[in-house]
């Protein structure tokens, strides 16, 4: 009996091709959009984590024990003895790569006016193993350690009408809690994936910054990445212990998930993304349910005829259920396949949000690369088929209860 119904259902689908194609396309487009949105959101989550690790906190961050407590007062004097810390890090197997960094607020003195910016002191030789700084250069070259040079965010340089070869005097508070100024030459303009970094930051050799800020060779922090498969939380604990044992100093060692503000930001972003995904998911489901129900409501006359010809209520329900299921399987399959295809293409080429991300202080790249999640894609496929099939039940059950004469009145 079911085989007969299945055959009838397939025949019904092929009999009115236009109707079947339209409802299949609607289901397919919704499924494709959901797959792509999930991929985009997964891409954003990975991107944010990667940016935080590369440009802000590392996988693990080592700072002076009291730095976080006084962070809002810019405590430049609360430093890390980078040399002794790095010696200890060399002995820890879990550590993949580390770099010393010093971030500081600065005023750029340009033609009599001060412009606020953020400076980063970095060891450009070591950074090569940590992030692709050279690849982020839009123009010029990387500053050389030991020289009064800087590279500046391309957007910041554009805003301040500066270019390569210009000299900029920067002022900041020193570790001696006084003021100092130094003139640095712009030798490179960078475009990092994070828009906020390009609009606010300049990078200079850490040895010159340490001298300028009177840090006596120390740095504000050492950040590091751990080897593949190593838990950052466990590694942070091991590093803290090793540092205490070897240097007798109690450093603040935190995995990026523990860092106040950072983890909350990831959590918050994930919540926002989940809500966005849910809303879109709901919209997609509505499209599927709406399309399926409309198709059946429009066929009341046909249902009446089938009833008049002797088809029972349950058979009618099963018939439309099978019709809906077949259409949704085909539509969803095509939609999901297209979604996977587009995601894979965009995953390589990226989606450029650079212009619209300007001025947004959030650790998301201007260039977004969707990331395909196989489990979520499989879920979307089955979900769409089930929702579409179940959506047939409501109108078909209703139709099945109507007397054939009554059903025939629908035009």
């Amino acid at each position: 009996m079911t085989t007969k119904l299945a055959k009838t259902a397939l025949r019904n689908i092929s009999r009115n091709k236009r109707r079947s194609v339209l409802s299949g396309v609607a289901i397919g487009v919704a499924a494709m959009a959901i797959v792509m949105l999930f991929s985009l959101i997964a891409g954003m989550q990975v991107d944010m984590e990667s940016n935080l690790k590369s440009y802000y906190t590392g996988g693990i961050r080592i700072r002076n024990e009291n730095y976080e407590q006084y962070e809002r007062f810019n405590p430049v004097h609360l430093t890390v003895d980078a040399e002794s810390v790095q010696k200890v890090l060399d002995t820890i197997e879990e550590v993949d790569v580390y770099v010393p960094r010093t971030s500081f607020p600065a005023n750029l003195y340009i033609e009599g006016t001060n412009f606020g910016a953020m400076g980063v002191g970095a060891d450009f030789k070591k950074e090569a193993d940590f992030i692709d700084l050279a690849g982020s250069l839009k123009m010029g070259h990387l500053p050389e350690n030991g020289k009064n040079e800087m590279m500046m965010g391309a957007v910041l340089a554009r805003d301040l009408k500066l270019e390569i070869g210009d000299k900029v005097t920067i002022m900041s508070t020193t570790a001696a809690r006084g003021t100092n100024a130094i003139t640095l030459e712009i030798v490179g303009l960078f475009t990092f994936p994070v828009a906020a970094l390009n609009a606010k930051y300049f990078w200079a050799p850490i040895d010159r910054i340490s001298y300028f800020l009177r840090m006596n060779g120390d740095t504000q922090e050492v950040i590091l990445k751990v080897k593949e498969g190593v838990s950052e939380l466990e590694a942070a604990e091991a590093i803290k212990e090793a540092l205490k044992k070897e240097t007798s100093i109690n450093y603040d060692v935190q995995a990026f998930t523990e860092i106040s503000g950072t983890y909350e930001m990831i959590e918050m972003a994930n919540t926002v993304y989940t809500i966005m995904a849910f809303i879109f998911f709901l919209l997609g489901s509505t499209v599927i349910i709406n399309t399926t129900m409309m198709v059946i409501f429009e066929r009341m006359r046909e249902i009446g005829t089938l009833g008049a010809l002797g088809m029972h209520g349950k058979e009618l329900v099963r018939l439309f259920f099978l019709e809906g299921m077949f259409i949704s399987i085909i539509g969803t399959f095509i939609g999901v396949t297209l979604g996977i295809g587009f995601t894979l293409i965009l995953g390589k080429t990226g989606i450029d949000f650079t212009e619209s991300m300007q001025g947004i202080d959030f650790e998301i790249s201007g260039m977004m690369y969707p990331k395909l999640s196989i489990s979520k894609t499989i879920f979307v496929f089955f979900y769409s088929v089930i929702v579409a099939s179940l959506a047939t039940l409501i109108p078909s059950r209703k139709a099945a209860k109507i007397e054939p004469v009554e059903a025939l009145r629908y035009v």
Partner: protein
Amino acid sequence: MKNKIITILILLSLLIPVTIFAITGEEIIRKADEIQVFETSEASGEFRIKDRFGEKVSTFNSWSRGTEESLIEFTSRAERGQKVLRTEDELYLFFPDAEELIRMQGSMLRQSMLGSDVSYEDMTGGKDRISQYDVVLEGEENVNGNECYVLIMTAKVRTVPYPKEKVWIDKETFLVWKAEYFTKSGRLLKEMETLEVEEIDGRMIAVETRISDKMKTDTETIMIISDLKINIAIDDEMFSLEELSW
């Protein structure tokens, strides 16, 4: 009738000294300004700056000419070679590692000097406060055993660092023992107190002063002047921009 006239005459005679010798707020301020101004001066000194992170000492040498020109050169290790030049209209900073002079203006003047409770703005403005403030003699008070006039000064111009000041000036020496600086709405911004004085060339000069920025928590700056020489020969070029860069 005769008695009445005598009584009136006596009363009038009692009033005469008050009217003739009563000092006005403006005069008190003028005298206080005068004792602070020298033809030229040279001094060395130090800032003892206390904040939430502890105490630090910055030493300096300074030179001044008249009311408008002064030069401070820092000699302590962390700031060695940094200079602050004040000319008639401008304030310039020289940093040994900067290839240009920094002219302080606008909001930059509100920045703290060396992290102390003294802002660059505190160093601007002429010492002729009469033309800049309306002065009201509010009364008299004793400050640490010194009889003082209490004056309220309200700014007439917008170019002064503080819209309102309350100062306690010694009735005899016209030395400022204490001062409070307020916003226009009356919020206390800074406090200044003279801790030590020295008589130089017949004038009482404050050589140790405590300044406290009330917008910060737990901070104070003690400025100590030592080895003050006045009316000495100073090179004319001392206060020029060219000299500052050398």
